[in-house]
């Protein structure tokens, strides 16, 4: 399996009014991508298409910035999309059980995406700073320790 892990594109900070009215979690969930964040991520989507990845299944966190990043990835999705609660929490078996197919993409958040990579590769540390809109490509079997890092792509490299 090829697994594409995207950190969400740059988003606006949480609205303090929403935080005061509905709580910090609600305000965090409502953070939208900034116009600049969208602009920065679009070349990444084109690059993923040029690299020949055809995503069978796109799983994304339910938080707005991840949903909006997933929407930008739709041009490279040939299968289905699904909202995945496990991408907004520390990774575990429930997430790994959903990794089925030849080419799957995830859109999520740090630090959980990094923990997902560590879980799947068995690596103690990633050794990279995963910037927003960045991509890590894994290959192998989607079980703990069953994958290896095939590529790391920063959005700065694909403008």
């Amino acid at each position: 399996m090829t697994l594409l892990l995207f950190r969400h594109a740059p988003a606006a900070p949480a609205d303090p009014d929403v935080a005061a009215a509905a709580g910090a979690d609600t305000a965090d969930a409502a953070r939208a991508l900034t116009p600049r964040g969208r602009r920065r991520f679009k070349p990444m989507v084109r690059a993923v298409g040029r690299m020949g990845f055809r995503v069978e299944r796109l799983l994304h966190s339910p938080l707005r910035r991840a949903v909006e990043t997933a929407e930008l990835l739709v041009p490279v999705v040939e299968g289905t999309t699904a909202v995945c609660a496990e991408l907004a929490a520390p990774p575990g078996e429930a997430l790994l059980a959903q990794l089925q197919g030849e080419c799957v993409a995830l859109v999520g958040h740090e630090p959980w995406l990094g923990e997902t990579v560590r879980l799947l590769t068995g690596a103690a540390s990633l050794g990279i700073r995963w910037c927003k809109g960045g991509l890590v490509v894994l290959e192998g079997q989607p079980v703990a320790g069953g994958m290896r890092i095939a590529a790391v792509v920063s959005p700065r490299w694909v403008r």
Partner: protein
Amino acid sequence: MSALRLDPWVQALRASIARTDAEAVHDLRVATRRIDTFLRMAGTRVLRDDLRWLRQAAGPARDLDVLCGRPWPEPTRRLLDERRLCAHADLAHALATPRAGALLTALAGVPPLPRAKARAAFPPMLRRLRTLRVDPADPEQVHRRRRLLRRVRYAAELLHRPTDPLVRLQDALGALSDSCLLHRALPEAASPAALQDALRAADAAWTRYAPRLKDLE
């Protein structure tokens, strides 16, 4: 000019999930369809597969709720009641999954739809309905028209446009849908003549009301 908000339908979906009566299943399916229409008008693809998943999870329960509302001989009633219980248990299982909860969280973050964008999305939907080629003798094709018709109706309601011909057509095609449901679920109890009658009535309704659809543009 104010934008269109999804909140009322997300609240309706949330409320239908919290209830356990038969109408709740119907309300859940309607809410998912209305939200799907909203997202289509916004040009959004993500979350629509999740809505379809939820709607399909509720489909067997709704079908059996409809069938159980009819009079049946005792053995058939027992069989349908058993199937209905299983279908509702399957639906309850789907609604308890993290995916269902995550879908509600994600829908709460969908931004308002600018009215101008929604208005621009309506005429192509209506044109697609008007120009869809359908064999009036083929229940599957007529059903496809009904699905499209329902979507156009929800879009019209979102925009506060008149819906009279759409509602009348949907009622006429709904009778056909009930007949098809019976053929699918209990073919031994279904009458081929009734299905043909329903197809003829649906075609007559289309011939009568379709010319009025142009006025909705």
